[in-house]
């Protein structure tokens, strides 16, 4: 009977496909690491971040951005419990500072602003940032103060849910903001910028300040 033969053939074909699938089908594995795409520009917002003046808490009291007028200021937002991204960024920043000539270096200031003020007190930050370079100052503040400065500069952060022991991580953007000697935000260096790139950005600002 032709219908029966056709059915048999169909069953055979389907079984063969099933076996083939079982043997050869390999689900595409998830990509192990998303390739780090440096964000050249800040993520699209309604208006570009304006930067500008702020007052935060240093170990010796209030610290204002305007305290560093005349210097190129490099601002990084992070937290001291950060195991990888922040120490890497601060190490690269420190390396860049060491590569500058002494007369250049004295016109540069690094600022590390904690996005975890709950745990990072100004005193704690004073232990932390000089380990990388003496010219990096650590600043903290109230949650509201930090949020305002982050918004001014276009930095983002999200505290993650704590584990059973109360330990938590903070997702955060990892750009280094470049402020010119007049206190104006001129741009952001993406995460993992090399010391050479940081040095170039600093020299560009020093040169344009000198030509004015």
């Amino acid at each position, binding site marked *: 009977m032709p219908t029966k033969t056709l059915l048999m053939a169909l069953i055979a074909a389907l079984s*063969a496909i099933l076996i083939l699938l079982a043997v050869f089908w390999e689900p595409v594995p998830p990509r192990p690491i998303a390739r780090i795409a440096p964000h050249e520009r800040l993520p699209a917002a309604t208006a570009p971040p304006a930067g500008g003046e702020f007052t935060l808490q240093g170990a010796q009291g209030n610290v204002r951005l305007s305290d560093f007028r005349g210097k190129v200021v490099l601002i990084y937002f992070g937290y001291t419990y950060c195991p990888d991204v922040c120490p890497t960024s601060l*190490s690269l920043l420190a390396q860049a500072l060491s*590569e500058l000539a002494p007369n250049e270096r004295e016109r540069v200031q690094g600022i590390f602003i904690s996005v975890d003020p709950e745990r990072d007190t100004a005193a704690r930050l004073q232990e932390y940032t000089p380990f990388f370079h003496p010219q990096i100052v650590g600043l903290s503040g109230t949650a509201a103060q930090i949020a305002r400065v982050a918004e001014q500069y276009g930095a983002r952060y999200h505290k993650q849910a704590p584990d059973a022991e109360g330990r938590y991580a903070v997702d955060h953007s990892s750009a280094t903001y470049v402020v010119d000697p007049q206190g104006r935000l001129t741009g952001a260096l993406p995460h993992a910028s090399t010391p050479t790139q940081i040095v170039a950005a600093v020299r560009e600002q020093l040169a344009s300040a000198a030509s004015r």
Partner: protein
Amino acid sequence: MIGPTCHGCPDPTSTCPPEKFKAMKFRSSAITLAAALAMPLSTLAGEADLTVVAPYVRMVPPGTPNSAAFMTIANNGTSDRRLVKADSPVARAVELHSHTNEQGLMRMRQVSAIEIKAKSRTELKSGGYHVMLIDLRQPLKEGETVALTLTFDDGSMSRVDAPVRKPQALLEAEQASAHGRH
């Protein structure tokens, strides 16, 4: 719908008569089945050969509770392996973590495993995978070594002594600038 091509027919593009097609399919199924049976055996025969290259633990400022271990794991075996666990006496908790950069936002997440494909290597490096050392029991000093025990999905374990030092990225930068000066 295009009918199955007939390899046993004088004209290979012609459609198979049902009987012949059926016989052919059964034959190919048998071959597939044999292949299916043979494959796991060959996978088992190739015992994975894992090597841990250049492990290190990041030196952190005094009083910093967390650090991370980095390394390259090479898999010379013929089957994929997964790093499923890491332990160390220096930290109260040890976790496997990944980083993803989502439009500049660095997200660190715990992962259940880190895959090392057959005949391949996986780098645990800054900005990617790392073994996170949480709540350090003692400060880590440069030059010391940290004992790490890595457990893989096949139950095999690897004991690694990772020196405490500056991050790889920084060392590379230092080498590059030293090279530039010469």
